[in-house]
């Protein structure tokens, strides 16, 4: 009788361990690599896709969409910083953003996990200023007038709009460049080159 009880207990404990493991596997959230997608599109989709090298004759207006996708498994408070640069301006990279004097504006949004947010980006090159060899542009971004100064380009050279993705870090209470990856922040940025004629 005691043997039967011992066998029963052994089998029961083993099966409990097996079924509990299966339950743990089923109810545990699936592991997923966190990432955030970032894109610049025009309203017309592929028909009017954002060309990489544009020549703009002021005044000219563009209606673009900044698309940010959140797959980090948590709500994100994001900020897109728009900067202007030329061919000699240092670019952002995976760890650090571009230098600050070139900032033109910023846009903020809250994005739930698994959602994609479309941020309107309407910009106009209104006019140009020439100081010596350098050309500066006067822009309007989402209704706000800004100047490219101190960033200028030699006549005939190109400018570029740089878009950087920043996310709010609750621990530090401030926006950090990039998004929280598995180990550290992952810097994300885009750029669109253009030249100004006239």
């Amino acid at each position, binding site marked *: 009788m005691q043997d*039967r009880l011992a066998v*029963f207990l052994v*089998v029961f404990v083993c099966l409990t361990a097996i*079924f*509990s493991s299966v*339950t743990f596997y089923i*109810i545990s959230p699936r592991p997923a690599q966190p990432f955030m997608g970032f894109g610049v599109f025009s309203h017309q989709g592929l028909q009017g896709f954002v060309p990489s090298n544009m020549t703009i004759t002021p005044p000219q207006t563009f209606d673009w969409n900044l698309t940010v996708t959140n797959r980090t498994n*948590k*709500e994100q408070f994001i900020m897109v910083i728009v900067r202007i640069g030329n061919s000699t301006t240092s670019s952002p990279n995976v760890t650090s953003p571009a230098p600050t004097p070139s900032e033109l504006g910023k846009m903020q949004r809250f994005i739930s*996990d698994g959602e994609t947010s479309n941020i309107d980006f309407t910009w106009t090159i209104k006019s140009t200023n020439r100081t010596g060899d350098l050309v500066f542009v006067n822009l309007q971004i989402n209704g706000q007038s800004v100047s490219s100064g101190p960033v200028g380009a030699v006549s005939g050279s190109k400018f570029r709009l740089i878009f950087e993705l920043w996310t709010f870090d609750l621990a530090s209470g401030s926006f950090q460049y990039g998004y929280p990856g598995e180990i550290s922040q992952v810097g994300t940025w885009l750029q669109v080159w253009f030249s100004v004629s006239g």
Partner: protein
Amino acid sequence: MRMLRLRFPAALAFLLIASALLSSVTHPASGQSTQILVAKQDLIQAFQSIRTAEQQGASNADLLPLSMQLNTALQYEESAEILSQQGNVSAAETSAVQSINLSTQVTVGAEALGSQAKNSSSYLTVLAYLIAVALALLTTVVVLETNRIMRIARRRRLLKAEIDYGK
């Protein structure tokens, strides 16, 4: 002496008028900036509440409307800042207050969703493990007692069978 008596009330009246003017100029400006600061803080607090609700197990579908509401609060806060820069103090204050109200609603909603999710998820976890233990018990009985169960079934079948006397 008489001159002094006349000057004192005049000086007092001048001081009173000056202080009233100063307070009317400075008070709304400082109040307005305080409201915008509060609106910013409340946005962050609401964001933190959503994060906490996520950790407690609230689903994305439940939290999505709160996130949308928080974006509206952010728009109000941004327009409050723009209006303040333009010098439209009262409109800026109104926008900031709307932002604060929305952020507060989001915080309350997120906290409610979080505690709901926490309770239901711990209940479901306990239920899942209880089912696992019950299944383990059932399987143990089936594995160890198969022979006895088969024997009982066979005996019942025999008892039910009609006796053929071989007419």
